[in-house]
């Protein structure tokens, strides 16, 4: 799920509104909040507020993590073990 969230943000050029993310990730507000806290804690995301809206921005660290996970996913699938 964490990877899905990061991938959704990357698809939106690295910046997404919280409401859009909730829709894209198909998660309840509470669950999304929990995952976002984890990603913010690990510096994979940054939070920015513009007016009433909250945006989430993919950091360099988050981008690198996502790329590494994609490589590992390929490796896992090559062994016949889906993620």
């Amino acid at each position, binding site marked *: 799920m964490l990877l899905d969230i990061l991938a959704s943000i990357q698809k939106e050029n690295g910046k997404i509104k919280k409401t859009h993310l909730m829709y894209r990730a198909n998660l309840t507000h509470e669950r999304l909040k929990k995952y976002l806290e984890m990603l913010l804690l690990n510096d994979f995301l940054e939070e920015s507020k513009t007016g009433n809206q909250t945006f989430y921005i993919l950091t360099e660290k988050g981008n690198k993590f996502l790329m590494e996970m994609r*490589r*590992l996913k390929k*490796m*896992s699938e*090559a*062994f*016949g*073990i889906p993620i």
Partner: protein
Amino acid sequence: MHLLLIPIWFYGFDTLMYFVSAIVGFFISSKSYKLYSVTRKKPHLYLHLGFMLLSLGLFLSGFVSTYSYVMYKSCIRNCSLSLFDTIFGVEDFGLFLYFGLSILGYSILALAHLPEKTKISSFVLLFILAFSVVMMLVSAPRSELLMWYTYHQYFNLLSVLIVGYILFKVLINFSESRNLVSFLVVLGFSGIFVFHTLHFFSFFNPWMYVFAHLFLITGYLSLLAMLIKVRR
């Protein structure tokens, strides 16, 4: 009891192949651990543990054969029987550990390839483990001096069976995905499978030992190629 026939000119090459294979195994193990730390899925943990154990076994085998060759060469002109006893004592113990670690590693890798819904009860696992131990112990009294020569046959036979199952699963995966990285994994396990098959017949002809090791290194280099391909 069969003695292995190893060509003298090949001494050292096999050691190098064990070390290279072990390093590749460690790479895969560490990558799998990274994956497991994120996904927390058991198959990824099994992939990590399986390759970790295989690599430890291969490292151990490399060290043991280095020790044997160095000791053998140092006493080649003036060798007493007691020195050979010491060499084979160390070799005996080291290779016995290598057999154990490898069988455990292959079994764990096979577990990673079981369908998710399959539940192996601890009773079945215990039975397989007990059966392997009993088979080894039954064969032990027949060995008078070098117990690993006797175990060698059981080890390779058991390895062929387990790796055969893994190979079957990765072949099915390749037939579905049809991509290069899956093909390299198939090549990798094919190499390991042929290695154990030919190693089983090493007592028959020295070239079996040489070809077996060439297949081993080909298998692990294919897995290394898979890792490189995935990074691109």
